[in-house]
Structure formats: structure tokens, C-alpha cells
């Protein structure tokens, strides 16, 4: 399979991720969407690294995987805190600050 195949899969993943985050049903759902976006980017990086040039892309992908884990840890902690305070993980439920 050529480069195009990988790119198409990545683009589909990216679109699915955006769709997940825009649907805003549930914060966990949104966080999964974010993971999809990041993994689409990782797939792009690795594919480009194989077909276009150099190891830069693979190194970039490793860093980005680690960062995704760090971000997920912080995000889950925040969501847990919100669940404790609001008894809900729907992203639209906490709305104390509307004019």
C-alpha cells in the first residue's frame, strides 16, 4: 500500500475524532475523540517518515504519544473533579458562568 492509503486512513480518523468532540455527549466521549485526532496525526507522522524523509517523523510520533498520555491523565483528573462537584460528566451541564 502506498502513502495515499495511510493518509486516507489518518484523515478518516481525524474526521471521526472531530465528530466525536463536536457531538459533546459526554466528556469521556470527547476525550476519546481527542485521542483519535492525536493518533491520526501520529499515523501521518509515521507514514510520512517512511515515504518522504528521515527519522524526524518517528521521533515526533514518540513524543506525541507520551504527551497524549500526559494530557489524558490531567484531563481525566479534571473530569473526576468535575464529576465530584456537579454529579455529571456531560460537558454542557456545568454552566455557572453564563451572562
Amino acid at each position, binding site marked *: 500500500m502506498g502513502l495515499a492509503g495511510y*493518509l486516507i486512513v489518518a484523515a478518516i480518523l*481525524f474526521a471521526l*475524532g*472531530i465528530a466525536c*468532540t463536536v457531538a459533546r455527549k459526554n*466528556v469521556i466521549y*470527547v*476525550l476519546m*475523540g*481527542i485521542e483519535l*485526532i*492525536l493518533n*491520526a*496525526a501520529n499515523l*501521518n*507522522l509515521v*507514514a*510520512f517518515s517512511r515515504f*518522504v*524523509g*528521515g527519522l*524526524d*517523523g518517528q*521521533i*515526533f510520533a514518540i*513524543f*506525541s504519544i507520551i*504527551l497524549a498520555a*500526559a*494530557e489524558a491523565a*490531567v*484531563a481525566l483528573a*479534571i*473530569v473526576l*473533579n*468535575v464529576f465530584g*462537584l*456537579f454529579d455529571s460528566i456531560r*460537558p454542557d451541564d*456545568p*454552566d*455557572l*458562568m453564563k*451572562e
Partner: protein
Amino acid sequence: MNLLREELSWITPELCLTLFACVALLVDLFVQKGRESVMVGFFSLMGLLATAFFLYRQYGVTPPAQPVFGCMVVDPFSTLFKLFAVGALAFVVLFTMLSRQTRPDGYGEFYFILLCAGLGAFFLASTYNLLLMYLGLELLSIASYILAGYAKGNRRSGEAAMKYVIFGAVASGVMLYGFTLLYGMTGSIDLTVIGPKLRDQFALDHGTIPISVATGLCLAGFAYKISAAPFHFWTPDVYEGAPTPVTTFLAVASKGAGFAALLRFLQAGFIPDRTLGGPEAMMGYSDKLGTLVAVLAALTMTLGNLAALGQTNLKRMLAYSSIAHAGYVLMGVATMNREGFSSVLFYLVVYYFMNLGAFGVVMYYANTTGDEQIDDLKGLGWRSPLVAITMVAFLVALVGLPPTAGFIGKWFLFTAAVKKGFLWLAVVAGINSAISLFYYFRVARAMWLRPEEEAKYATVHASPAFAALLLVLAVGTVWFGVGFDSLLRYCDYSQNLLR
């Protein structure tokens, strides 16, 4: 070995900041309960002072742009932004030490995370490398998410953190995707290589759609960081819900770092060297990108100002005002030339003084009364004249009236835009400044034009330390409106060296 030492010596400020962040974390363990805020804050301040000293030594570096480890660069541009970040951090640390809003325990971690966020801003301001840019952005963002939700048990703070993390993670993910596309098109993650490669692609005339998609996705990430439309929705809620010192950090240091990265990104990748003469397609693309940014600038300032008009909460009003100011600064970015970019730097420095001051007053007020409503400021001018007078100075600067620095800063932005041919943008910005007069004036009116008897609270004395901080900021706000020569020269100089 010598080479390593030589290169390491260029990143002493970063190393120093890292060291003191760890020190802050350790000191927290050995300080008796109840005194953490002062002691750990004191060590953080020492660290910032040492970092500022090392930065000052790099002030007039020769050679003008020193690459470090092939992925960072030390030049006057990055030094300016690092000094900017250190100054903002110092004020945030001082505000935190004087604030009662942050939670009583766990201060060591607070300062540790704050300094780490500052480190992220350092990297963001001094790299052409997409990987390091992404790492810097994430370091800054992840630390900011934690800081926004730091007031544990406070529902507003929790909501702010959740909104911030969802929005921020999506935006940075989208930007990462854009970075990967740039990498795919050029085979490099170094912006100094990507620029010429893109130029070649323009010369081959493959069409600009792939490049436009990649640039657009990258710009989304930057727009989120500087809270520009259409990625500004998180700003009011996060600014209002987060503890005020954190809001100050987000409004000043985080936004400044975002602009630094945006300027570098555009400068290295998308501005053809007009003296050498790039391919016609690239010239056209650069101008189109400028027009896009100009439209975003107009949108951002209008949305921010119109929403600010109806606010009753002072902090939320300042949040919308900071969106509007991102719009004004984008006006300088839209010119895509040296003059515009140096006016951006100038305005950011000015913005630093007036916004730190305004948020400082909000913090002081909320601290002493537990209240953030604009109407409740009634009679403050008669009761606490010093605070009210400095606040008026900050408000006048935020509107952009002489003799403050806000006027000079806006003047440079307007002239840069007009010279580039964005007359319509300057007109929009002028109308917006007039609109902003209304809501800033409401604050001044509440403070001064109501009789003393209507005052809701008894005299709220500023502690001497706090009064001194406000005075320093107010003097800076007025001083740069008069003696702006040297700052302007430095801004211009740092632009010279950006290619």
C-alpha cells in the same frame, strides 16, 4: 565536551528555571504548615530573579542568532519574550502570595506548575523546530489546565478547568495534524528548512490547496492560544472561573508566548524574502494569508468588544477585553512585514503592564470584599484613592488614549496596518476602540462618579506591598507612553534578526 558546554551555556536561563522549579517543590516539604505560600513563593521569586539575570546577560548577544542543539535559537526576539514571561511570572507569584483565593495547602505544587508553564513559554518563544514548538505549547497548556482548576472544591474553578482542557486538547490536536501535513510536504520539521522548501513548491505551481489546509490547521492552534476568533469561546469562562492570579498568567504570559510562536511560524515559513524575490505564487499566498489574518482580527476585536459591553462581572469583562486586544495585536500580524511585527512586540509589552495592573486591582478587590461585580465598585474612588487612581491609568491605557502607552502601542499598530493597505481594518479598529470606551468608562464611573455614601464596602486598604506593585505597573503604563524610544528600538532590532 567543550562543544556541549558551550551549547549548554546558551540555555542557562532555561536550566535555571528548571532548577528552581524543582527547588520550589522540595522547599514545600520542609516548610512548616501555613507558611508554604510565603516561603515557596519567595524561592520561586529568587529563581525568577536569577533567570532574569541570565537573560539580561544574553541581552545583546553576538552572534545575533545563536542556534542551540539544532532545535532552539537564542536571539533578541526570544530574549525579549523570555524577559516578558519572567516578568509576568514574577507578578503572578507576587499576586499569589498576596491572594487568599488559592487553596491554603499545596502551594509548593502550585509554584512548581507555574514555573513549568513558564518554561513552556520559554521554549515556545525560542524555537523554529515544530517538535519543540509542540512540546512547548503542550507544557504550557497542560500546566495551565491544572492551574485553572487549582481552587479545589470551587465549582467555578472546576468548570473552568474542564472547559479549558477540552477546548485546548482539541485545538492542539488539530495543530499537530497541521504540523504533520507540513512535515509531509517538505520532509522536515525545521521551519527554516520548511520555508525554502515551500518556496520551491510554490515555484512548481502545484496549487496552494494542500498548503492552505496545513496552514489553516496550524493557525487554529495558535488562534486558540491567543484566544482569537473563532477559537475564543473558552476565554470568558476560563478567565472568570480560574483563580485570579492564574487568570493573570493566562491573559499575559500564555497569550504572549502564543504570539511569539505565531510570529516565528509565519516569519520563517510564509514570508518570502522580498529582496531576493520569491516565486509570484508565494508572494500572492503570503498576502492572502495576511488578508485572512486581517479578517480574523476584525472579527476578534468586534466580537470581544460587543460581548464586553453587557458584562456585569469585572473579571469576565476583562476577559472579553483581552479577546478584543488579541484582535488589535493581530492587526499587526496581518501586515506580514517587519514594521507590523515590531509593532506587535511593542504592543505586547504595553499590554503586559496594563493588563497585569487591571487584573491586580480585580484580585485586590475580590480579596478584600469577595466581590467581583462592576456596580459594587461604587464609591471606591473616595474610599481607596490609590487603587482607584492606578485603575484609571490602566483603563485609560486599555482604551488607548494618550498620554499612556496604550495610545502609542495602538498608534504603531494602526500605522502599520494602514501602510500595508488595510485601511478598512484600521477603521474597524478605531470604531472598536470607541465602543470599548463605554465599558471601561463604566468601571471608572462606578469608582468615581458616585457619592461616597453609596459605597458598598468600608475602606479597603491596600497592603504596602500591593500598593507598590500597582504603582510600579501604573508608572510603567504611563512611562512607555512618553519614553518609548528605547523599547521601540529594541523591538525593531529584534525583528531585524528574524529572517
